[in-house]
């Protein structure tokens, strides 16, 4: 199963805390988006392994853009 981690709001990716292949748990801090001059941590939606990361630090993202894909068993 693949779970997409999507941007809850438009903004700029300023920090990525996960790497492809990492095993992650629900509510880990995956990355940080800056919007309205505020840093908002985006949390991992489920337990699993990071399959893909679709953005890099400095990217501007729109709402609902896929940030990363988490693979679960």
């Amino acid at each position, binding site marked *: 199963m693949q779970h997409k981690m999507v941007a809850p709001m*438009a903004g700029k990716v300023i920090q990525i805390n996960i790497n492809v292949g990492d095993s992650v748990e629900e509510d880990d801090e995956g990355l940080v988006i800056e*919007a309205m001059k*505020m840093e*908002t941590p985006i949390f991992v939606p489920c337990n699993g392994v990071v399959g893909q990361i679709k953005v890099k630090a400095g990217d501007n993202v729109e709402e609902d853009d896929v940030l990363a894909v988490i693979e679960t068993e």
Partner: protein
Amino acid sequence: MIEKLSTLIFTTGFVYLTPGMVFMWLIGLTLIFLAVAKGYEPLLLLPIGFGIVLANLPLAGLMEPETGLLWKFYEYGIHWEIIPPLIFLGLGALTDFGPMLARPSLIFLGAGAQGGVYIAFFAAHLLLGFSLQEAATIGIIGGADGPTTIFLASKLAPHMLGTCAVAAYSYMALVPIIMPPIIKLLTTATERKIVMPKARKVGRLEKIVFPLVGVLVMILLVPASAPLMSMFMVGNLFRECKVVERLNLAAQNELLNIVTIFLGLPVGATMNAQNFLRKDVIFIFILGLFAFIASTATGILVAKGMNLLSKTKINPLLGAAGVSAVPMAARVVHKMGQQADKKNYLLMYAMGPNVAGVIGTVTAAGIFLTLLK
């Protein structure tokens, strides 16, 4: 010779200093300190603090009617109603009404969070004996909108302008400290966890039509709000029409920055020792804080009321975002939402009531002006 020397001494300001003036310097320096060291609304509190020091220098005559430099800034900038509307032009260009248009029902929250304005108005007049005009100026502090406070004060109670402006900007800087306890008191953890349904996308046409329709409806409804409302909406039209990008950027950057300089200094300069060192001042600060707290509370209560009537539940935190300190109130709401549930991202939903709150405060000011001028 000695006589000449002594005359020279009497041309300096030192001999005319009063303890009140020195006390006002301390207040000015405190604001500068808070701006520099703590980052409290530095864009305004820094020039206001400096203006306070300047206004309390004997013989300098900077606030002397007709001739003083800061008096001219005040007279032609604020008294002539030029600077606060120009600030609103810039704010209009900075404001995205998208989140509000996505869920128009959130406008009620922006209106609900003006409750503190009226509660503080009645409290100031009935309980503490302020005149109606003074009470309105104090109440509007609860709208958490600096330029509107200055605009209304210049019309209704110019002697309180500096104090009310400083109160409004200080409490705005303190939103992250003032609001959370009130919010916690009035909402349950379950309510704070409510996840908002996905907002619909707002198209370009809607965003262009909004300032046009908005300006007609709001000014027809409350004509006295016209100076602020008209500039706010034309600034927003610059932003959304996408064909006058130069005007849009000038309004939200250069022009806004320039008028901010000319706003802060004379606002500070209205605070001379005579005007400020009165026992009223302490009441103004207390009532201003009370207005802020009451606005937060009424916003939340309106949200809870809407939940009783409607099937789709809204997160009552959004009610607190109706306090129009943009975007601080929305940020506080967002943070508290994430504290309750890490995956609850309220920021964009909170911006809806937040910008609606600005319109609500301008409307409240217009109503006061109509009734009390």
